[in-house]
């Protein structure tokens, strides 16, 4: 059983995420089989480019039920967080449905180009996730999850969206903690300490 496992479905920013944990002194292992997903003490689901593709990969590897059944700490990053919700504008396929709501496409405007790329302040930050009110975090996404009772940080960009979510041991970050400088590192540390 690994203490910290990162789900590696092929594409995406797996190495970037892995190195983010390594910088904190953690020793993450990359996994892609069902038993590892079931047994990892802590599991990270990094972003892969497209929600539909990510679900397809999870299904192909037989990981959907194992993910839904997890009770130990689990963290989804970027698209990995979006997968926790019920559905997305990005794909027909249903998502994991562990959190209520539908992930929606960001609407662009002259002041809000899409994708949303860059350092944006977080609002309404809850205690216990290592973040502080108004801290700037790095985002890179075209779809965003709705605010809900499970939002632990929000973000304003063409409307209000969830920047981070938490429901018991289920964590999600729309931002990239591994590329969000010191605040991102604090967030990952909070997850490791949970």
């Amino acid at each position: 059983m690994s203490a910290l496992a990162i789900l590696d479905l092929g594409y995406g920013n797996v190495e970037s995420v892995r190195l983010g944990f390594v910088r904190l002194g953690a020793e993450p292992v990359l996994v892609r089989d069902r038993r590892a997903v079931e047994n990892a003490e802590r599991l990270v689901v990094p972003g892969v480019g497209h929600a539909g593709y990510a679900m397809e990969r999870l299904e192909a590897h037989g990981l959907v039920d194992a993910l839904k059944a997890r009770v130990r700490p689990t963290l989804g990053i970027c698209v990995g967080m979006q997968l926790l919700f019920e559905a997305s504008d990005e794909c027909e396929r249903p998502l994991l449905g562990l959190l209520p709501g539908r992930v929606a496409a960001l609407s662009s405007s002259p002041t809000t180009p899409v994708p949303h790329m860059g350092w944006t302040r977080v609002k309404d930050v809850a205690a216990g996730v290592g973040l502080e009110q108004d801290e700037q975090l790095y985002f890179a996404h075209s779809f965003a999850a709705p605010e809900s009772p499970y939002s632990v940080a929000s973000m304003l960009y063409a409307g209000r969206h969830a920047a981070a979510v938490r429901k018991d041991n289920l964590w999600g970050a729309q931002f990239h903690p591994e590329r969000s400088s010191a605040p991102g590192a604090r967030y990952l540390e909070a997850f490791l300490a949970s």
Partner: protein
Amino acid sequence: MPAARIIPCLDVADGKVVKGVQFRDHRVIGDIVEHAARYRDEGADELVFYDITASADGRSLDTDWIHRVAEVIDIPFSVAGGIDSVARAEACLAAGADKVSVNSPALADPDLIGHLADAFGRQCVVLGIDSFEDEDGTWRVKQFTGRPEATRDSGRAMLDWAKEGSARGAGEIVLNCMNRDGVRRGYDLAQLGALTACVEVPVIASGGAGTPDHFREAFEAGCSGALAASVFHDRRIAIGDLKAHLAASGLEVRT
């Protein structure tokens, strides 16, 4: 609003930071990880590494240095130069890069942009455009600009190519205005303003930064980020001072 992004660009040859864009004349100025760490510590919001050897020689990109950078820095960075296939882009991302930037190969094969976006998501795909203003005032896209003797007109107009590239899946456009490159008289605000008005994706200004006000002007023209090389390398502008200047002008910066 996201913070106005300040993006130092480093030229890389054989895993070292070099100076001088002429690929034959480049001079090693230091270790890539030391430079990356220096800019991170000074407050850079993002870094761009341009592998001049890969693009000039048609060689495959050496990804060892990408991994060394990814280990050390905790801000996003993109890799440009010589990325002409999904496989090469994947090698860069697997080494820890956050984005890949394509330029001449996308002009040769526009489908490449869509293939990259399908594989990695459009937020990973940057389209670099080298634009040259002709005597008649039209903005032409140039290809193979890494080598002056190989540079040629692509036959495309800048705004048309930018619109096509973003429609094909580029998630960001870096517009390098060649007439301004290296002269430090300011970004080409006419081109940048025209571009930000006609694409939905973020635009990064490149070419011409010489003073802190030049950066302010680029952001006021609608750019999401401003890229520069020599003013940072030569320490003419300190990133901290630049951000203080932008903040005093009412722009959101990352502190």
